[in-house]
């Protein structure tokens, strides 16, 4: 009955339905009318069977209230959330309804999240048909994340209109969970990846390093204690001396992503550019780490944060989580960013600057320097990053950074 209406053009807010703790449905009103009619019929005709039916209907109405309370009683609900997800990518959240009652079942229960709903295109809710006594029912539900950031799923509302839909009962509960939503990740054009690698290739340190097992380097005489697997048997039989292979470690390219989130003005387009910047950085970071590159990060998050170039899944999550949580930056322009990133830009490292502004480099600059600049406003980025069409950069910032959009 209690529904929040919103302007259909307002796509920035997610409607949160909050039901009153006790409500009477239209069905209930119809039932009450029928009950009164039955009572009148009984009084008018004085038919005892009708008096019985009238009493029966009263009893059903009363027990409806009791059962609706019973259904929600001793019903523990746990969320099974993924570790992380990304904007524009459907995520499955599983709700586990654990019925702690010994005898009575819980039937037809709806759960709706009250907090953290703004992170999704619609209010997270799920429906459990049935959990018998002392049993657990797992109900998956699919959500489409809308905003990056850390979303606290704190309060939720459990409601039911069981058994007959006359009375709707709802209770609020607190179960703290959090879900981090990464910025939208795009498919990165291989040419950009190549550009990042080639930028580093111009450096002098692209030499193989001793050790490792990546590439064949040469042969040497086998020494006792060395790995027998490295013995080069064919050469050994020819030479009559045990010869072993010498392998090298190929140093992967190192990238340092410099993410400029400076908001030049309060225009919605500027916000969208910043979001696109962050999304592009996240996309490149994700792709690069997946390709085995070492990726570092420098960005402003109420203070400068920098990750030295590393690789691995854990590092990927850290980088993306940091990008997901980046706050609104109206203080630190790109020059400061470059200053902060300077210590990480060693000679073996490619710097990639992501900026919402319009900065372009000449061909000479590109050749001379090992820095790649990706601008949100340039046409080039559309070729480099292919985002899901459902991604809307005007709404994918955290809710507290959302500017007012024009209709």
């Amino acid at each position, binding site marked *: 009955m209690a529904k929040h209406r919103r302007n259909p053009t307002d796509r920035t807010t997610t409607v949160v339905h909050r039901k009153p703790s006790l409500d009477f449905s239209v069905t209930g009103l119809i039932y009450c009318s029928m009950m009164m009619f*039955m009572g*009148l*019929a*009984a*009084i*008018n*005709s*004085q*038919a*005892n*069977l*009708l*008096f*019985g*039916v*009238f*009493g*029966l*209907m*009263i*009893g*059903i109405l*009363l*027990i409806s209230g*009791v*059962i609706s309370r019973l259904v929600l009683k001793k019903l523990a609900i746990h969320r099974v959330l993924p570790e992380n997800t990304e904007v524009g990518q459907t995520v*499955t959240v599983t709700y586990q309804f654990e019925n702690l009652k010994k*005898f*009575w*079942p819980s*039937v*037809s229960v*709806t759960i709706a999240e009250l907090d953290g709903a703004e992170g999704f295109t619609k209010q997270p*809710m*799920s*429906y459990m*048909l*049935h959990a*018998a*006594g002392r*049993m657990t*029912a*797992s*109900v*998956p*539900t*699919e959500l489409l994340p809308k905003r990056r950031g850390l979303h606290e799923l704190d309060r939720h509302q459990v409601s039911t*209109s*069981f*058994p*007959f*839909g006359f009375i709707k009962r709802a209770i609020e509960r607190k179960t703290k969970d959090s879900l981090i939503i990464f910025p939208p990740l795009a498919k990165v054009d291989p040419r950009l990846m190549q550009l990042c690698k080639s930028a580093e290739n111009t450096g002098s340190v692209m030499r193989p390093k001793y050790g490792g097992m990546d590439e064949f380097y040469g042969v040497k005489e086998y020494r006792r204690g060395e790995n027998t697997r490295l013995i080069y048997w064919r050469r050994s039989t020819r030479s009559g001396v045990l010869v072993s292979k010498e392998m090298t470690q190929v140093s992967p390219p190192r990238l340092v992503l410099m993410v400029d989130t400076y908001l030049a003005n309060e225009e919605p387009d500027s916000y969208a550019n910043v979001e696109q910047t962050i999304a592009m950085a996240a996309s490149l970071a994700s792709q690069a780490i997946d390709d085995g590159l070492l990726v570092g990060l420098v960005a402003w998050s109420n203070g400068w944060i920098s990750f030295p170039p590393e690789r691995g899944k854990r590092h990927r999550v850290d980088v993306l989580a940091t990008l997901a949580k980046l706050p609104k930056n109206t203080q630190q322009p790109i020059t400061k960013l470059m200053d902060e990133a300077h210590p990480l830009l060693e000679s073996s490292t490619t710097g990639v600057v992501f900026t919402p502004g319009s900065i372009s480099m000449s061909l000479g600059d590109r050749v001379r320097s090992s820095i790649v600049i990706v601008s949100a406003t340039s046409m080039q980025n559309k070729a480099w990053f292919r985002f899901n069409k459902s991604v809307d950069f005007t709404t994918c910032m955290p809710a507290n950074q959302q500017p007012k959009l024009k209709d």
Partner: protein
Amino acid sequence: MYDIRQFKPTLYVLVLMGFIGYAMAAESIGFFIFPVALVLLNAWMVRTGRFAPLPRWLANLATLLCLTWAGTQVMGTRQTAILVIGQFLVFLQLVKLYEQRANRDYAQLLVLSLLLMVAASINTASLLFGLILISYLFLSLYCCLLFHLKVDTEHARFAMALPDSVRTELTLRQDQRNLSRSMRRLTVLVSSAAVVTAVLVFLFFPRGMGQGMLGPMQMSPAQSLTGFNDEMSFQRIAAITQNTAEVAWVQLEKDGKPVEGTQLLLLRGTTFDIYNGDDQDAQWQWSRSRVLSISNTSERVGTSTAWQSPTYGAGPAVWKQTIRLKPTGTAALFAMAGAYSVASESDLSIRQSMSDEILQVIEPINSQITYTVLSRGTLDPSNTRTPAQAWTLWREMRDRLAQESGMEQRPDLGLRGRGRFRRRSVIDPSIAAYAMRPEVTNGLASKRDQSAEVTDLDEQIAAAIERHLQTQFTYTLDLTDTKRLAGQDPMAWFLSDQGRRGHCEYFAGAMTLLCQSLGMQARVVAGFKCDEYNTLAHQYMVRQSHAHAWVEVLTQRGWLTYDPTSGRSSPPPTAIASLWQKVKHAFNYLEFGWQQNVVAYDNDNRENLVANLNSRLTNTAIQGSGAAKSVHEWLQFGGLFIISSQLLSAFMGLILIVLIVAVAWFVVEKWRLRRRAARIGLDNLPASDQFKLARQLGFYDDLMRLLERHQIVRPNHLTPLEFSESLAYLPNEAFRTIRRLTGIFYHIRYGRRELTGPRQRLLGNVIQKLQQDLSTPADGQSAG
């Protein structure tokens, strides 16, 4: 996921039950066969996937046609409106069944079915219907629960827009797991609460107020007995004998002792003395002359006041009849001959005819009444008034009362009877001629002075005619003969050579006319002759099929009763009943209880109940206060202190010992369980889980200890399963038992299964047997 499979079958059963209940209430086999067949056909089509819903326009057209038909039925026929509405509801449900598409259609079906049962419950009050109604209500609750779930799930599916990939067979199984059991539990809960409330409302809701405020729901009484009004068309009595419906339950006592069914019960309803013959207005009809309608002043009787005959009282025998009469739609009050006192549980205005002692109420009986009549068993012997004398007496009484009250006329002494006033029966000459035959009256007819109203020969003549009819005529209920009577007096036909067979009306009418043709005073009595005695209820059960007609003739000893009908006299009823009769009696008794306690429950019953409850509560309170007072006095007794202090000390000591033992037992039990948990390897679990599993896994601990006694110890690096597999060297039986026990161990330890008490004991027995199996080879070896 979210599939309520149970809903549709339940809905079909519910609709079927509604149809059956309605057919029962309407007593129409057609409304049973036709709709049930269509429902079953629909169910088959839906189940086999052949069903295609009717187009909406066609369904709407069919509904409009049904509505028109129902309207014409209500306006054009004399059928009860509620029955027509029921028929309309049946058609609507059939249309909906063949139109079913969405939840809206199912909801309409549910509501229509419920309304149909309401219509049926207004129309009938039989026990069988009551049982069907109760079952129906429980099933409808179950169906409503399922329907609500179906609506909710579909709403949820729509709201969440879950793709099919999420709705897997696994989730479907999860939903269905114990769903039926849960729904049954909830249905029982809902039903119990609803029934309790229904009983409370039924018992305590005030009755009587607001009755008829919305107009009558039935256009005519559900049941009306024909043949007991002032006119009786020919064969009315015979017609109602085709019906076995109940009319009344009668508890009979003679001189204060209950009569256990050993007596034929003859209940007089009304009498007729005028035969209209070939009258154009009322052909072949018996009517009650105005003289017979002369009655004393009507009196209002109730629970506190009884009607007493102003002229005579008890005779040599007193027959007390407690009669529970169902609605008959007539004014006749049935009672044995010679009624002189009537009391009723409800307010009634009763009058008794002066001439034939017939009891009547002012208004037709349209609701069940219970009344008690005291009768002498025979008509008043002093009442030898002829109709002419009665007529004179009435005129005198009317004038006297008018004079006393200052009114011109007392309307409540009114004459009943409609149509033209006729003083005598129209008797066919052939009947008069027949009466003069010597074999009919043994020649006494010719000796009788036909101008005299009463002679000393009348009793013999009447007895002779009765005997003649009983012996020379045949009883039959075949009514097809009447078709051949076109234009012929049925009484004359009956006495002719072509006739000589018929039912009680022929016999009684013929005898009456034969007597009247001889100048005697005679009349036909319509009533019930009942021989059906219910051994469980200890009451006579009067049915319509017991309707009977007999004759009363005025003699010098007063009006005497004659029953000339041949072949209908059944053997005297006995109290001994066969098994089938017992079953029948049991059902009838239940019906009786249902009628008496449920259908006939009224405001008086309610007030009695409330008064009883009130008095019991008051008594309980008084008794409680008395007991408290006596305890108080006892406590104030001086010597009590010493005894009580000693007793108190002993009691405290006992409590202390019990407490210590309980605590010790608790501690030992915990210690034992903790040790067991450690032995089994549960010591890493939380304490509550440890204790719970240790209790459940006692058998496994016993098994390990048993094996230890045989120097078989599980190494720490082996899991229980591996350990059990490593015992293959043991005898086969023992090895299999250990494997099985290990399997159970896993089910409990990791599968959340629980052992019941009996199962734990069973496992204890298995371990004992295992001990024997393990000991046997050793014994054998030692013996060897």
